[in-house]
């Protein structure tokens, strides 16, 4: 039975120090508010997973929440570098950050195996890259039928996956539409899940391209309107491109980042 709770209670209940945590949402529906709540609750030693660790993981890394990151593209989309992510990898600030790096197809298939209850996925990928020698959990396997050499990639099962969606109904089913990325697989691969939503409705009507994640796969739901800002929520608000550009300046040095952290995140309660 899905439990409805305020965001702070849900994060406190589901995310513990040392956990492996996935926050997914591919450009669209990024669970920023939940990420900020993890920072406020001062979680430490997390292994954070995300295909595109953009601003939200730059913030978690700069705040010192993470020990390790598993990812496949770490940049500020359309703008440039993630400065906190780079500072952690290049200079170990505020703490050293271990990395496990994949291609998008590879990390997606780690989730697919996790969601399918299999130990690994099979794919064509990584061949010819220097990634394969530098990344654990990727190897080769021979097809038992044809003998062809293929890439095997180990299942990923996060302790907790957090996503943001447009709606939940009163029974805890979750509805999302537009670009839905890897969210379903990330939820199904995880032991626990939290979904923040724009809106809670009595029952769903049917917008086009809608996907539903049934209540039985969702541990907790928190009603957090605007919880994906500055990313976007199709049908609710647009991407704040200016915020992504401003982050480039703000995050570039440690002092302005820490000021932002203290004034915008730590000083505020649950994000509006």
């Amino acid at each position, binding site marked *: 039975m899905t439990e409805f709770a305020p965001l702070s209670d849900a994060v406190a209940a589901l995310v513990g120090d040392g956990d492996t945590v996935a926050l997914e949402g*591919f*450009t*669209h529906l990024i669970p920023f508010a939940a990420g900020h709540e993890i920072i406020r609750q001062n979680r430490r030693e997390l292994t954070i997973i995300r*295909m*595109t660790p953009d601003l939200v993981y730059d913030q978690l890394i700069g705040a010192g929440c993470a020990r390790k990151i598993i*990812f*496949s*593209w*770490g*940049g500020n*989309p*359309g*703008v440039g*570098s*993630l400065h906190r*992510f*780079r500072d952690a*990898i*290049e200079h170990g600030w505020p703490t050293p950050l271990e990395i496990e*790096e*994949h*291609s*998008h*197809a590879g990390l*997606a*298939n780690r*989730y*697919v195996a996790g969601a399918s209850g299999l130990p690994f996925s099979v*794919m*064509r*990928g*990584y*061949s*010819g*890259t*220097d*990634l394969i020698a*530098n990344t654990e959990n990727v190897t080769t396997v021979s097809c038992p039928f044809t003998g*062809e*050499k293929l890439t095997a990639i180990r299942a990923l099962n996060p302790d907790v996956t957090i996503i943001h969606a447009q709606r939940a109904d009163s029974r805890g089913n979750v509805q999302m539409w*537009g*670009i*839905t*990325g*890897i969210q*379903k*697989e990330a939820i199904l691969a995880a032991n626990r899940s939290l979904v923040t939503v724009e809106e809670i409705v009595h029952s769903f009507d049917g917008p086009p*391209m809608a996907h539903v994640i049934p209540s039985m796969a969702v541990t907790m739901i928190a009603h957090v309107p605007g919880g994906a800002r500055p990313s*976007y929520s*199709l049908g609710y608000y*647009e*991407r704040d*491109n200016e915020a*992504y550009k401003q982050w480039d300046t703000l995050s570039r040095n440690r002092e302005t980042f820490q000021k932002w952290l203290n004034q915008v995140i730590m000083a505020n309660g649950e994000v509006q």
Partner: protein
Amino acid sequence: MSALGARTETPWTADEMMTVAASRSLRDGMSCFVGIGLPSSAANLARHTHAPGVVLIYESGPIGAKPSTLPLSIGDGELAETADVVVSIPEIFNYWLQPGRIDMGFLGAAQIDRFANINTTIIGNDYRSPRVRLPGSGGAPEIAGACREVTVVMRHNLRAFVEEVDFITTPGYGRGQGDRERWGLRGAGPTMVVTDLGILKPDPDTCELVLVSTHQGVTVDDVKMQNQWPLQVAAELATTEAPTPEELVALRSLNETTDAANTE
């Protein structure tokens, strides 16, 4: 007004020429897996000019995206809203890209080498302690492995065109003939590299990138000066056809619409 060593003035910029030249590698009706930035500009220009029937596919899931402005990110809302269909990430990679259904990949790069291997991972020799950490691979390794052909779009300079990349994020031709086959890569690989100075293609025998065309107002020496390895030049070096007025109007209009949308 071509002074010694100075480039002839043209009524278009070098970036415009690059985008136009790259857009021409897409033929009408092709499907194209599009990277963000310069590749996306070129692919959308093709759709607004000679290839209205091109099917643009973005790794975030939209198939048949028809954006009116150039997306800032790979997953902008307009890509989904204008697409024929939006699929999940596992579906876009496993069902659409992996089996070899996509004709063309359009990619950018931070570094490229003599054999068209691409680096978007690190600058420096130590992966665990890089001098500069770049974003990483995203969809590129599998795009370059599975698309039937690949066009790379990037500016030509000494930092970018190196003898050997610091890290192979995305395989081109490895160390030469036969490597792609050994790796089991089924697509042809980077069949064209379009820069702001000219066009390079792999030599059919050695797989080394060779200068096959210079843009108008650019000399072979101009290109060589921005290239770290001793660049081979094709026996029949072409001059890239100048952008047509239609191409320039379409590109500038696309950029203006994009700027206007972003400053709303």
